[in-house]
């Protein structure tokens, strides 16, 4: 005899401890097994793209801070790259180096948060997270030194940076870069061989290579599926062709690979930071001829970078005015998230949480 049961529809979120913000998953459950999943987002929608049409190019930098609030610097970076392409501005070399330094520091900070929260989702009671916070705190102190802010930096400008590095910054950064590899090894020892973590992550939430490509995933999610695609190598923007580093890739595209790729990228970021500090030249921090009110010639430009979450792109259209005619954002979090349903269906409800955590999204960017 076969018993027929009704699926239980469970609303996970918008208020839920591990939806990383206001995200909602409508989950159909058969016992503990997820048979269907529907993503509902938009709770944090602020209309960044529309707002940008009423503000000048320089003012819009502030808006980008509020998107991926765990990686504001890289948001700034992608936006100013697009503006510079649009207005054809040459950026001084020192400013470019500082931008690379900021972007890699941001990647370290963002990946630390991603790994920490992923472990939290796996049920490790906050210990890994707080260990990650220890290093992130140092990074935030460094950012505070540079621009006075710890979360929304608003540091980059079309043509350069808002101001130069303070004198105490470089020694502090050097010390951080010297100490960081030991801490990364510590995380590796603490987590990577843990039997329970392996059981929870190996083979769970597989995103096959073809599917990762076909849903245009990017960043660590794509690289964990075995695709060595990194914009820093594939389309070297700014000065990334001057640094030597590797692209870590996973094999199966499961939770563990996504975790592992992020851990390896920490090491690569430290490597880039070391090279950038050595090569940092003297010079101007902003191109002197850039006016405060930019009036780019009518046209369009697309600037994209490898943000910690993936390919972050800004598409700008100018009609010759002081504000962009249209701004379109390619948010990596949102596009990586589209694969969630297929990765989760058929797994237990606990896996749904860990898979969601391993994609590493920030709702500020998903909803914009």
């Amino acid at each position, binding site marked *: 005899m076969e018993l027929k049961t009704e699926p239980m529809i469970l609303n996970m979120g918008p208020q839920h*401890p591990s939806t990383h913000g206001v995200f909602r998953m409508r989950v159909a459950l058969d016992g503990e097994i997820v048979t269907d999943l529907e993503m509902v987002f938009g709770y944090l929608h602020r209309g960044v793209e529309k707002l940008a049409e009423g503000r000048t190019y320089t003012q819009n930098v502030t808006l980008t801070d509020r998107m991926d609030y765990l990686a504001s610097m890289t948001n700034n970076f992608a936006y100013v790259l697009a503006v510079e392409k649009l207005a054809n501005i040459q950026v001084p070399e020192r400013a470019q180096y500082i931008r690379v330094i900021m972007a890699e520091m941001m990647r370290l900070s963002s990946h630390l948060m991603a790994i920490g929260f992923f472990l939290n989702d796996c049920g490790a009671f*906050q210990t890994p997270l707080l260990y990650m916070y*220890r290093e992130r705190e140092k990074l935030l102190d460094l950012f505070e030194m540079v621009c006075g802010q710890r979360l929304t930096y608003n540091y980059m400008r079309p043509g350069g940076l808002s101001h130069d590095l303070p004198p105490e910054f470089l020694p502090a950064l050097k010390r951080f870069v010297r100490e960081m590899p030991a801490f990364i090894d510590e995380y590796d020892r603490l987590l990577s061989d843990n*039997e329970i973590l*392996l059981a*929870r992550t190996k083979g769970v939430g597989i995103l096959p290579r073809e599917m990762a490509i*076909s849903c245009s995933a990017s960043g660590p999610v794509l690289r964990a599926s075995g695709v060595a695609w990194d914009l820093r190598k594939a389309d070297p923007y700014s000065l990334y062709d001057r640094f030597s580093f590797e692209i870590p890739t996973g094999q199966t595209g499961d939770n563990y690979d996504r975790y592992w790729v992020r851990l390896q990228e920490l090491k690569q970021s430290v490597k880039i930071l070391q090279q950038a500090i050595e090569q940092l030249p003297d010079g101007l921090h902003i191109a002197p001829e850039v006016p405060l009110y930019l009036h780019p010639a009518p046209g369009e430009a697309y600037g994209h970078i490898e943000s910690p979450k993936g390919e972050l792109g800004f598409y700008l259209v100018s009609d010759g005015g002081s504000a962009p005619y249209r701004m379109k954002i390619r948010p990596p979090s949102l596009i990586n998230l589209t694969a969630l349903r297929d990765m989760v269906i058929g797994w237990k*409800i*606990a896996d749904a949480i860990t898979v969601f955590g391993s994609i590493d999204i920030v709702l500020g960017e998903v909803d914009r």
Partner: protein
Amino acid sequence: MTYLEVFYQTLARSMPEWLAYLIPFLVGSIVVLGFLLTTVMVFIYMERRVLGRFQIRQGPNRTGPKGLLQPVADAIKVLTKEDIVPLPGDKVAHFIAPILVFIPTLLIFAVIPFQNGALLADLNIGVMYVAAVGTISVIGAFVAGWGSNNKYSLISAIRAVAQMVSYEVPLMLSMVGVVLIAGSLSLNSIVEKQHIPFIFLQPLGFFIFLAGSLAEINRTPFDLLEADSEIVAGFHTEYSGMKFALFFLGEYAHAVVTSALISVFFLSGWKGFPGLPIFVWFLIKIGLVFTGIIWIRSTLPRFRVDQLMGFAWKFLFPAALVNIFITGLEAMVWPGFPWFVVIINWIVAGAVVASGSLLFVTGKGRILEIPGAKPEGRSLIEAR
């Protein structure tokens, strides 16, 4: 002869017998209850501070010197909160569940010896009593989950029954080894028989008992009932105010009881070196075991449901059977348990744990292959 009996005989000379019988029990119960609640307070404070140290942070340090008044502040906060009962919930079940969780843990304390003879009831079936009473709190968890009319609570309730029933089995079986060596079911005489702590004679039993206990008291890595990253707060999601406080107290009281039981069964209970009063040794052992539990909580991630059940039935259960077999064999061949038995048992324990970790696979593939859920060649945005 226990302290209570001495007390009774002293009283019986000067007052009617029923009164002389009643007073020692009342006094004893109040003392034990007072001790338990104080210990729970201390343990709550201790857990928060120790956990803070493990997580490179301070822990509570604002209320009173070194944050010592934090449990008091918690209690005041919890008592003054509104007691919310969900409208569509089952009110009787919602009311009765916290009591069902809290009371059995208190009952266990009746048989725990703090000192030779210092226990409320020296039952000759003490181990059975512990096993029987300790299981009642499962019903409380299930009733709470059912009465809340909350889907998270319901999932937690189902998990509670599955997990508790599974882990009871290895837990009970691991006590058999201890009983075989001690030759008694009374907790007091089990401690008396421990010339060396039984952890040396029963390493495997200790491991199984610890794992089973962690599952019983919902601690990581078995804290699936309250898995806050998955099902919010599990069966007590819908509880607030004093009812929630009862769950909270019950959970910690259970942790105290478990620490005490581990001390009694495996760490020679109230026995210790001369120099300190005997019951201080017992308290130190409880504290040590509890610190170990906090350590485990701060270190390990959580199992998944199927892995949890697999761990109980595929690893702990056979290991417990092996333990009983070996111990029984030794009890027949060397009834005096000479010193080399210790070595044999440690080798056996090492072999069982090692082979278990080699053979036992926790994670295994996708649980269910749903047609259409296969990722290949499916369009991502599907009309629903």
